[in-house]
Structure formats: C-alpha cells, structure tokens
C-alpha cells in the first residue's frame, strides 16, 4: 500500500531473515558438521519476502502472534541484525525503546548511566548536558540521581531508560511493548510524549499486543504471521483481521 508520506524514512525491499536453530557454539559441534557438509540445523525463516515502506512522520503499528517476526523487524530497522536476503533502507537517527536500560551498569549512578546511555544512542556530551535536566525531570528521579541504579526499582529503571531514549532526539522511534511496564500515570506521560513526537514529524514504529493502543495511536497497521506480511492498512481493518487469526482472542490492554 503506498503511503501518503512523501519521504520514505524506512524501506524494506524483499527482506528475508533466516536463522539456524539450535546451532552449537563450540568447535566440537561445529567441525564434524562442517566437514560432513551436512547436519546443520534446519534453517528457520523469521521473515520472508517482506516489502513495505514507512514515511516520515508516520506512526506504523506492527501486530502479530508471538514469534511471528515482529521484533525481528525492529531489530532490522535498528541495525542490530542484517537481512539474509533483500535490503533495508533507513534514513535518519533511530532510537530503540527496546528493553530500556539495556546499557545501564548496575554499579554506576543514575547520573553516570544517563550519560552512558545517551552516548550509546549517539548523543554528544554537549547534547546530553543540555538535556540532562529534562531527562531527570521526565523520569522524576531527582532524589535518586546519584544512587547506583542497582538500588532502583524496576519501575525507576524503566523510567530512566525511557527518558533517555525520548530525549535522544530521534528521527525514528522504535517502541517494543515497553508501555506494558510502569504504572498508568507514567504510561499516560509516555503516550503524551509520543503524541508530541508524532506532531513534530518523528516516525514511530510500534510493536504491541494491545489492539487498543494500536487503534488509537497508529496511522496504519501491518499484520505479520509466520514471517509473512499478510495485512497492511488502516488500524480498524487490520485489528479485525488480527482478531480473526488469533485462535482465542484475549483482549490485552496497556492498563
């Protein structure tokens, strides 16, 4: 489906991603297989011939059952993994909200971890200094900013991770179910912030099991099943299609 947005910020051209399942990681397992040229684990396609593009400022949702390949798409956009076949084109700075705080070091303080994580996301020291107060304000962690993050609750941890990513000035924001953690108050705050992004022309890709979130928030939704793109269109249409392929539809909500 052609998008109404003129700049194609993200483009997938016939992308396939293949994994080998259960492949051992020691020479003892590898060498015999290598010399016999057989016996490697069956390849498994996480994605198969996926093509789509997402325009600048578009908010695209990706839905599908567990293991359908949604997160692999996010990883391809983030550049963490490479396609087996096809091409992925990305224009602009990507900020992944995938499992927030992955870069945190438990022994470092909140302040040190903000600088560290901001640097991982590609911010310069000056940018970080400029936005430091905003980050701590957003996370509401002034009291604990000089405490090692290992003393943080999981909610605090997540808030800090989200705040850093939000203020990293992304051009493309990847959101993977992060909103299912945290209390309703913080979730609303994040949604408000994401709305702001939407208005300022940031492209957002949301992976979620929450049909409510997807319907409300996205311009367009893609449905992935078994590694294939089987639906691409307005949220209401695709949500209906999704519910028809889920064996026992259980409504999950973000609250």
């Amino acid at each position, binding site marked *: 489906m052609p998008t109404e947005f003129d700049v194609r910020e993200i483009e997938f051209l016939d992308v396939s991603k293949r*994994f080998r399942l259960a492949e051992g*990681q*020691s*020479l*003892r397992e*590898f060498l015999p297989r290598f010399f016999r040229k057989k016996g490697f684990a069956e390849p498994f396609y996480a994605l198969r011939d996926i093509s789509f593009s997402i325009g600048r400022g578009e908010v695209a949702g990706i839905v599908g059952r567990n293991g359908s390949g949604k997160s692999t798409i996010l*990883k*391809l956009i*983030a*550049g*963490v*993994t*490479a*396609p*087996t*076949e*096809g*091409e*992925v*084109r*990305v*224009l*602009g*700075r*990507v900020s*992944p909200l*995938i*499992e927030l705080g*992955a*870069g945190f*070091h438990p*022994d*470092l303080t909140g302040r*040190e971890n903000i*600088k*560290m994580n901001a*640097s*991982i*996301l*590609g*911010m*310069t*020291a000056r*940018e970080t200094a400029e936005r430091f107060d905003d980050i701590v304000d957003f996370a509401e962690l002034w009291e604990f900013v000089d405490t090692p993050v290992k003393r943080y609750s999981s909610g605090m941890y997540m808030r800090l991770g989200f705040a850093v990513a939000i203020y990293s*000035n992304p*051009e493309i924001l990847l959101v993977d179910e992060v909103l299912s953690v945290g209390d309703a108050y913080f979730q609303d705050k994040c949604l408000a912030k994401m709305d702001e992004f939407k208005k300022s022309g940031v492209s957002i890709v949301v992976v979620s099991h929450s049909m409510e979130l997807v319907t409300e928030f996205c311009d367009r939704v893609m449905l992935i099943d078994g590694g294939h793109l089987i639906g691409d269109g307005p949220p209401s249409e695709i949500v209906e299609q999704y519910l028809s392929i889920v064996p026992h539809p259980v409504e999950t909500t973000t609250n």
Partner: protein
Amino acid sequence: MADLQITTRHPLRHSFGLLDLAVYLRRFWQRRDLLMHMTVRHLRGQYKQSILGYAWAFVNPLSQIVILSFVFSTILRIAVPEEVPYPLFMFVGLLPWIFFSSAISSATDSVVNASSLVTKVYFPREILPTAAVLTKLVELSFGLMILIVLMLYYGHPPEATSVWLPLLFFIHLVFTLGLSYPLAALNLYFHDVRFLVGVVLLLWFYLTPIIYPVSLVPEKYEIIFDLNPNALFVNAYRRVLLYGESPGIEKVLLGALIAAVTFFVGYYLFKKMERGFADRI
C-alpha cells in the same frame, strides 16, 4: 551527533573494500565519546566491589615481580647482560607483557559480555574490544610507577633514549588492538576461543624474552624470536630504557609494519563478522 545519512543494511554475505574500511574507521572515530564512556564503565566495574579497589592494579605486577625475581635470580640465576639488576631487567619485559596479555584476554570476552547491549542497539562494535584494551592502560600506568621507583632504588635512572618509549608503545598498542578484534569476534562464534587464547598466551609468555635475555637463546631457535613481535617490542623497550641504545630504525619500521598489517587485517575481519553478531548471541 551522527549526521543524517541513508543507512542501507545489505544482506549478511556482502563484501566490502578498502574504501568502506575508511568509512568504518571514520564512523568509529566519530563515536570516540562512547569509547571513553565504555572505558570508564569497564574500569568502574572492575574494582567496584573490592575492598582494595584500585590498589589491586599494584598488587598484580608487584607480586609477579617478587616471585619471578626470586625464582630466576636467586634459585635459577639467569645471567643478564652487564650492570642491570635482574629484577629491573625482567620487569621492563614483564610490564608490557602484562598489558598485552590482560588486554587480549579482556578484549576476547568484551563482545560476549556485552550481549544484552549488542542485541538491542547499534553502535560500532569495535568500541567494545577497544575499550577493553584501553582499560588496561590504567594498570600499565600504575606498573610504570612501580618501575620508576624500582629504577631509582637500584640507582639506574631511565636513559635519555627513553624518549623512544611513547612511539614504541604506540606501535605495540596498535598491534594489540589488531589482534584483539578478530579474537573478540570469533569468541562469539566459538566459545572455545577464550580457552585457546589462555593457552596461547601462556606459551607466548615463555617464548618471549621476558624472564631471560635473548642472548641465551641458541642460534638455531633464534628464528622464533625474530618472528615474535612481542620479542621485538620487549627488546626495544630494554635497549632504550636500560641500555641507552637506539632501538634500531629497521626494527622500529618492522614493528610498525607488523602492527599496521595486524590492525587492518584484524579490523577488516571484525567488521566482516560484525553483521552476524546479534544472531550469534
């Protein structure tokens, strides 16, 4: 901030040439901020939970110099060339060796240890082994303090030719980095690599003239030492620091050539394997 650019993620088995290598090195350089952060993070993590903290960086070289000096100058009595006391002779070789071997082992594990990061965010992965190597510079500088105290104690202050040291060490550092890249990458594919590295480093220690002078080596085995870059570096350190001799221009050039080739080949291999990292963890 990284400038706006179209990033195309090609299929896994895509090859790249020398020009791409220059692009990768430039992007790496743009992220030197992150390299500093990672290095500091490594350092903080290393000694954080210990009572002695950074004092451990002194304990390791000190204990080695005491025990090796005792064994090889009191029990085995290795003859070293003129006027240099054995502990001093040995320590000038041991210190760069400790740097080299600890940097290599730490770098080998660096990418595996950062798996949670590698599967989530992209940044030039060579930052991880590079930070692991740079972390060891701090320990090296502590070791240098011990060395200076030792030299003053034995009444054998550094010779004027010591001005060669920064250049020699820079070449040694480039060589170390070049080796650490492919090892860090391979260790993701085969966890055997870390064990192999341990064994090779042990053999390499004995085949490098650290506890003995190269003059004791029988002629027919000299080839081993000519082919061993670490022997080249250790000998050069001794000449400039202890004997007031020039390291020899041809030796410096040879070392620089070995280091440059190791670095570029190692970096190339690393970048080649990098694209599959996240799938391997």
